[in-house]
């Protein structure tokens, strides 16, 4: 056998070895699946956001199963539709634990449903990792873990972040109008902003509240126009911010600076009248966020899958990021403890930080909340970009004023 033949044979053997080794490292998960149960608002008034969370869960579960699963076992997500009703969420979580006998829980979407699920989780001593709970002071259960990193007192910390951003502009606002929905998780932030604005010396020229579900924003827009504020804080959730801006456009008014608490990201970024709108964020599709572990890969997958699912806005922002983080946190705790025991998982989470696409999260503060990582973003050139603080801002982006 010539040297060349021997070398070729060795190379072939080596190749087979490499393939086998790679295969072993990426062995398909086996055994009974680990069942993670939760509900989502797949129908009803919150469904437009609920589908984002479902998409994220589908992506995460299919990706983890493509690798070696969780503890070497495949993951199965058992999701039920709570129809955007917290009372139904409570029943379904009860069902997931007692009938479906899921191994672990994943939180539902939105504060009301999470609060319901928290009660059930507490009754059965289950860990509840959740992604979109808006009022930290109501989270009393010691085995609940929030992955929307808004800190224990967001009604104080976030308005300060926002007003810091505004104070750094060439012409900081001196007067403020606060108009807000009475939707609980938004309303308490608006009341907090009101206090912070007062302490910081901003002159409040208008304060209005409306009931969630309000249809006619014309009179509210007219009152804001009449008040001539330098800055408008819109305590809005979902479409309300768009409805108010639309009503303002109809009376030929555009507020100099306007912030929206929890806008529907797609409609807001796509509306021409929303140019320059500010909002809170924990993640956007640009650096430095994309440098966080798994972020770039997730963004790519989400963009593709959201387009395929027919979503009008295919970008990753707060909702999708908080959702993905929840899965990262839960699976990180299971992997680290090699356990499905809820108490073991909870103990580990309280003592350790977890690397996520938002950054490092900790759960050792009041109500298991860590740092307030909410930043300020703005609609610029038809896309959301983070503008404050500078450390989180998109490359070259600054807060633009009209």
């Amino acid at each position, binding site marked *: 056998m010539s040297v060349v033949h021997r070398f070729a044979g060795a190379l072939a053997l080596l190749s087979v070895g490499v393939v086998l080794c790679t295969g072993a490292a990426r062995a398909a998960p086996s055994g009974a699946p680990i069942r993670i149960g939760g509900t989502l608002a797949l129908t009803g008034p919150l469904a*437009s956001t609920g*589908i984002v969370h479902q998409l994220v869960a589908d992506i995460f579960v299919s990706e983890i199963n493509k690798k070696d699963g969780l503890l070497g076992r495949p993951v199965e997500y058992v999701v039920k539709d709570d129809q955007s009703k917290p009372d139904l969420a409570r029943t379904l979580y009860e069902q997931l634990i007692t009938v479906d006998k899921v191994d672990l829980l994943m939180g539902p979407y939105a504060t009301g449903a999470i609060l319901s699920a928290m009660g059930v989780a507490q009754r059965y001593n289950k860990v509840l990792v959740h992604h979109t709970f808006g009022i930290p002071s109501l989270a009393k259960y010691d085995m609940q873990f929030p992955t929307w990193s808004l800190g224990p007192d967001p009604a104080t910390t976030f308005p300060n972040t926002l007003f810091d951003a505004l104070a750094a502009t060439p012409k900081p606002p001196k007067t403020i109008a606060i108009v807000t929905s009475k939707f609980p998780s938004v309303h308490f932030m608006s009341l907090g902003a009101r206090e912070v604005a007062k302490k910081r010396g901003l002159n409040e020229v208008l304060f209005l509240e*409306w009931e969630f579900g309000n249809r*006619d924003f014309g*009179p*509210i827009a007219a009152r804001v126009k009449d008040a001539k504020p330098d800055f408008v804080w819109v305590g809005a959730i979902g*479409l309300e911010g768009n409805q108010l801006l639309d009503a303002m456009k109809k009376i030929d008014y555009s507020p100099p600076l306007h912030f929206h608490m929890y806008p529907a990201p797609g409609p807001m970024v796509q509306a021409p009248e929303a140019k320059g709108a500010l909002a809170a964020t924990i993640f956007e599709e640009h650096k430095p966020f994309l440098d966080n572990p798994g972020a770039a890969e997730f963004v790519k997958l989400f963009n593709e899958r959201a387009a395929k699912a*027919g979503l*009008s806005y295919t970008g990753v922002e707060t909702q999708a990021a908080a959702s993905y983080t929840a899965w990262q946190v839960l699976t990180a705790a299971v992997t680290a403890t090699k356990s499905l025991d809820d108490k073991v998982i909870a103990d580990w989470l309280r003592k350790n930080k977890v690397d996520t696409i938002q950054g490092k999260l900790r759960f050792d503060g009041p109500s298991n909340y860590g740092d307030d990582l909410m930043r300020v973003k703005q609609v610029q050139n038809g896309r959301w970009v983070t503008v404050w603080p500078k450390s989180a801002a998109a490359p070259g982006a600054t807060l633009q004023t009209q």
Partner: protein
Amino acid sequence: MQLPSATLLAQSALSGVFAGALYGLLGLGLSLSWGLLRQINLAHFAFAFLSAYLCYQLSAVGGLDPLLTLAVIVPLFFAIGVATQWLFARFSISTFNSLLVTFGLTVIIESLIQSIWTADFRRLESVYGNARFKVGALYVPAPELLTLCAALALSLAIWGVLRYTDLGKALRASAEDGAIAQAFGVDRDGLALLLSGVCAALAGIAGVCLALSQTLAPAQIYSWIGVVFAAVMMGGLGRPLGPLIAGIVIGVSEALTMAITAPSWAPLVSFTLLIVVLLARPARI
């Protein structure tokens, strides 16, 4: 407390008129089917939203002018209305049962909408969306003005038909006492099919107006039910001008409440007005 300016009040009242026109237009078909067919058709709202989504699809994807979509939507919804009435007659559905059956139909249509267009928000951007006129110090948006014109024209036209034509007299006679009307040669079943078709077509027109001025989501079907029912009941069942007048009264009252006091008090207005009207004139139902 600072008094609101005259412009603010006038602009708010105008906004209330436009909101009321939409309540009236949505309530028109509902009032006719309740008053003349004795059917409480909850699916009327689902028809309106299905029409809004069709308008969105034909305009945003198909490139049609939103108003031209009426050429497709009106006959289509007329046919849907006729088919619905045929089924109601075939299974002898009573007034109370019509509420249950049409609620079921609403849920089915909502699911259909969600399966086709997803639960995501849909907004129709059209040439009408940004058009507005200035009259003195007041701004008049085009989509809302179109809605007001449509509501006025349709309410007056139907009022005229019911009051001055033989068809209208036959419809009113059927509603008053179907058996006697039939004995006098009125084709009660045929008229019911026609009226049901017209009511569904009215829902279709209201849907196009919704698509022009609102961002759509499937679950929003339910958010209009309360206030439109209030307008229908205040306006009187089977009275074509009633929902529009009551709708505008509610819309303006809500808008002025928002302009003068706290906007959060506005929802109290429509239902307080309804209770007052029912106490003062209980015979309207």
